[in-house]
């Protein structure tokens, strides 16, 4: 049993992390064309307009909640005079709501994917692998959130294990003694991260935050892979740029 625990909570996380980073780098290098949402809104818009935002915005809150729950140690919140009761009430309320929204969104999206023929036809093999895992992770997580109200304090178990991973000193017992639903959630989560680079989940890495800082109209020169600004757009002191650039390109 102990060997299994070491394999699951001491070794597997690193394997998954390696697969996740290397896989994403590989995908980005060889298949940038494949980094897309592969949206099916063209086929069906009504259900998506409810399910899509519900799922994605819910998921953003869920992710933020995980960061707070796993990364922020209990000592810090204590120093900020956040009582245990307040913390958990907040986690249950916000986390539970976000989780339920995400689950409702996913349910709607899954229903849509199965019932709308055009969307069903546009479902890829990786989708078929990801959707069950995603649903299972979500359900396990929701169950854990709901159960956390009474007994187990994950901030003294799961969170300690999670942080210890990054200290390269995995605290295997901290996780091994967590209730089953937490262990299940963590395992399924790792499965999801392992599938990540090879599925459409990669579109999460393409969140277009740069849009907020970009000028509206983008100009690019013909020369590929050499972003370049026309003098007409940068200012007169850069008027030589095209000449300079062409000379460079010729070399």
């Amino acid at each position, binding site marked *: 049993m102990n060997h299994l625990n070491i394999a699951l909570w001491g070794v597997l996380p690193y394997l998954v992390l390696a697969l996740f980073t290397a896989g994403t780098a590989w995908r980005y290098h*060889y298949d*940038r*064309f494949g980094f*897309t949402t592969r*949206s099916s809104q063209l*086929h069906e818009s009504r259900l998506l307009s409810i399910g899509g935002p519900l799922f994605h915005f819910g998921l953003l809150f869920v992710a933020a909640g995980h960061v707070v729950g796993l990364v922020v140690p209990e000592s810090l919140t204590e120093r900020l005079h956040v009582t245990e009761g307040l913390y958990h009430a907040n986690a249950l309320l916000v986390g539970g709501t976000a989780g339920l929204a995400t689950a409702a969104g996913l349910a709607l999206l899954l229903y849509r994917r199965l019932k709308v023929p055009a969307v069903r036809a546009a479902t890829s093999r990786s989708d078929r692998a990801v959707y069950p895992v995603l649903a299972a992770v979500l359900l396990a997580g929701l169950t854990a959130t709901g159960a956390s109200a009474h007994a187990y304090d994950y901030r003294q178990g799961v969170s300690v294990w999670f942080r210890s991973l990054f200290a390269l000193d995995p605290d295997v017992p901290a996780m091994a003694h967590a209730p089953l639903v937490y262990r299940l959630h963590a395992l399924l989560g790792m499965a999801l991260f392992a599938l990540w680079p090879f599925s459409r989940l990669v579109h999460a890495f393409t969140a277009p935050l740069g849009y907020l800082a*970009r000028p509206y109209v*983008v*100009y690019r020169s013909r020369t*590929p892979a050499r972003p370049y600004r026309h003098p007409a757009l940068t200012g007169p002191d850069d008027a030589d740029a095209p000449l300079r650039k062409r000379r460079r390109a010729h070399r």
Partner: protein
Amino acid sequence: MPRRQQTGPRVMAQVAMVMNLDKCIGCHTCSVTCKQTWTNRSGTEYVWFNNVETRPGQGYPRGYEDQDKWQGGWRLKGGRLVPRAGGRARRLARLFANPELPSLDDYYQPWTYDYDNLTTAPLGEDLPTAPPRSLIDGRPTAITWGPNWDDDLGGGPEHLAGDPVLAKMTEKVRLEYEQAYLFYLPRICEHCLNPSCVAVCPSGALYKRVEDGIVLVDQDRCRGWRMCVSGCPYKKVYFNHRSGKAEKCTFCYPRIEAGEPTVCSETCVGRLRYLGVLLYDPDKVGEAAAVPDEKDLYEAQLRCFLDPHDPDVARAAEASGIPHDWIEAARRSPVHALISRYKVALPLHPEYRTMPMVWYIPPLSPVVDALTTTGHDGEDPANLFGAIDALRIPVSYLAELFTAGDPEPVEAALCRLAAMRSHMRRINLGEERDPAIAHAVDMDQDTIESMYRLLALAKYEERYVIPTGYAAGAGHEGMNDGCSLDGDGLPGMMPGALPDTDAFHAPPVPTPAGTGSGAGTGLAGRFNLLNWNGRGRPSGLFPQRGEATE
């Protein structure tokens, strides 16, 4: 680098198009050849980069001109231009479901026929048929709409009611108009000076090319957020539902770079398309697109264009890095002549504030026809001028299309065309020329005759004045070495990038040494992603083991 004093306005060049609507016979050859070239792939079944609509009519996709519904283009907000569907924050908030995205039904559900049934149906009383099948999910389907369902006013008033341009006109005008005339409107991407599709793309995948103004989608950067589809008021960006990427009219850039006309232009039976270089002042564009009154947008855009015959402009253009032969081409540009000199071409829907760069010569033929059917001499200048003035209905419809509702520029353009007809008729009939005809439209006889040459004779080399592309090498050496879809990291048109550059009429010149694996070699054996239906793993999708990737 020492600072160099800019001698005049900063100058950019664009290859633009003008279409002479008088000549369009609605044969759809442009649409079909374009589709064969660019969108005959899985995922783009419903996509027509070029389509021909009958006006009045709903267009493709249905009612795309109704911007209250689709929210395409720009609007003025406190004097500033913002995308009509909202600024950056609002776009990002709508990332997970774009509320303004047209559905496939707004375009049409693409279909094929089950031809197999013709030969495999069991013996029976009835002749076997080829029933329609959806190209999306393969199931039996009923065909209820197509890309030009209301062609030639097919479907009558019922479908006409869906024309957003007609809806702007009064009831009386509408009823009369339906009996008056129809004309065809071929449409491609407008390759705007102020493209709203580019502005709403969160990923920055859409861009306007500095050298020739062509608006393109970087397929490697597009993440399928679909904002461009709704952001374009002309609905000329499409979503490939297989690859999950936006695709649009490329202005056949590999052909343009080789100095060849676009496929739609090359194959146009009516020879109604003109291609040429326009020089413009990029600093004026933002200001011009933001003029408060929509009716001033046509004039404002005209003021952005620069006269290539002006030596100051030529000097400024050279200083801005535009090659000499581009300036030469701009001087001979038929597009410049039709837009700025003869002033017979008008922009399509300037009120969208995108500064479109595909302009149209409004059709005069319906006016002439209307006169002839009432027993008048349709080519008598007095009758024609009077008719243009009197036939308010066609003019106001055309004005809604081309000048945001201002009839004056449309009337002026139609009068110039009418003057040209009358003037040339006198010559053909051996009558004495009447300088009064030309003067009546502020032209002289020579200008009218050169306009006639361009519009009526429309010689190939006068219709298309396209300088070869620059930028990838100094001057033009190494420029014509094949199709720009070949090359490292670019999807070649043909798998393995065969040396058959004849497809684009460019002489197959070997790649200059030192530029790495140029056209051909780098992609040999690699799979062309443009031909991928998104399914399976065709050979060559990934590089061979051990193949250098840099």
